[in-house]
């Protein structure tokens, strides 16, 4: 069971075998997408094989960082004490230029600015020495 102490800390992603390259890339300032060499599917969620055709012939390429807001929600009541000081903040679903959709949060402006279909660009924001989060600002 979870403790009160756990709830005060922001969750930090722990990379696994499938995702180590993604988080390393973000530390270097790029968002790596997986491109399937067989069916040309592009995926953001990192897997050991292509979600469409099952091929393991995948290569990483840096995303352009450009995308559009598909939907969003401005959080006023945080999910626990760790995020309380950040409210209000906008959680956004971004359609990347290369095709995949991802979830992130808006940075570099007020959450009220976010609109449907707004153009956004990637910002790699370090949250500690080990971890950089992919966030987005207005293009």
């Amino acid at each position, binding site marked *: 069971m979870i403790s009160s102490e756990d709830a005060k800390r922001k969750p930090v992603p722990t990379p696994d075998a499938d995702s180590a390259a993604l988080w390393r890339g973000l530390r270097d300032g790029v968002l790596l997408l997986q491109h399937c060499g067989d069916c040309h599917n592009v995926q953001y969620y990192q897997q050991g094989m292509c979600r469409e055709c099952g091929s393991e012939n995948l290569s990483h390429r840096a995303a352009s960082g450009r995308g559009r807001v598909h939907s969003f929600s401005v959080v006023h*009541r945080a999910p626990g004490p760790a995020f309380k000081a950040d409210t209000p903040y906008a959680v956004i679903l971004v359609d990347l230029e290369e095709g995949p959709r991802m979830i992130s949060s808006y940075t570099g402006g007020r959450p009220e600015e976010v609109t449907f279909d707004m153009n956004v660009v990637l910002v790699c924001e370090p949250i500690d020495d080990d971890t950089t989060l992919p966030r987005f600002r207005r293009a």
Partner: protein
Amino acid sequence: MSDSSLRGKAAIIGIGMSPVGKVPGRSPLWLAANAAKKALVDAGLEKHDVDGVLSCHAFASPFHRFSVAFSEYFGIQPTFSNTLQVSGATASTMFNIGAAAIHGGLAKVVLVVASDSLMTGLTPDLALRSLTESRDQQYEMPFGIPVANTFAMTAHRHMKEFGTTAEQMAEVAVIQRRHAARTPGAQQTAPITIDDVLNSGWVTTPYHKLDCSLISDGGAAFILTSAEHARELGAAKPIYILGGGECYTHEHIFLMPSLTTTGAVDSSRRAYAMAGYGPKDMHVAGVYDCFTGTVIMMLEDLGFCPKGDGGRFVAGGQMTYGGQIPSNTHGGLLSFAHPGMPGSLFHFHEVIAQLRGQCGERQVPGAEIGLVHSLGAGFATNATTILGTENSL
């Protein structure tokens, strides 16, 4: 209809629920056992008649195998048991799987039982946090995503695509509060208006506090057996499982195929096909209502109105008495009770009571066929069950 179809093979012969809302000093196991005792009394059976137990995890309980821990607590040793986990959809799957287990000979009498004490067993922040734990630790949680957020983004997109309004969503909460006012034991019964909802403060846009379901303690239990055994026992008013269907479209919200059309389309289509009935044949419904906009989208995906018309359908009075499909007549997760994963079991309790004609002043006249739709995890999991009386077979 194939011979393997579950249609009419299993019947619900007992129902029970614990006190709901704020129930301090009672563990999830007590709440479950309290409900189970009542369901057994209702069925006219003893606990040793139960040979199967299906349940789901309780956040406020330390047991990973809740169905197993429950059986020990209740003093039974079943020969079929499982603790299921497909979030909010679990309730419906317990009925579908229970019916399949009975039909397949794995069990004769299945106790479906679940509970949680999210209100008094956890602090409010921990209750919320425990729900957000179900999002992906790498790809979703670092951005501070409350459980309401994934549902909020679907509702927001629905507003953008179909012109659904905040007032129409608020209407769902207003109607269900009116329903709860006539339900003994409901957690929230004070009347509310659309303005009350719109002025209740933001949780995560477009949802206000009163667009969101409650946090509660409570448990419910059901006795399932074969149609044949129900007849042997002389069960007073068995309610049959006519059809079941499920659909799992994604795990991550960003991989949901469409934010506005969900797996409920396929889960309900499968359930209707098995039952041999369509949406127009339903007399009463339990529609998962973790948020107001969820109900609007579900009324569309379950086939009660065309895609995009859900807001107008609700505002036109179609989900309450006198409308096309009286839904959540007990008040639902928004007003009756919402102890997390077991929440949808109260929709089952209500629809079964409606089909038995036991709902007093909130009875839907002539209700013979009903539907319950459960869902969870930001629409990742969807499960539908269609229930009917002897006349519907």
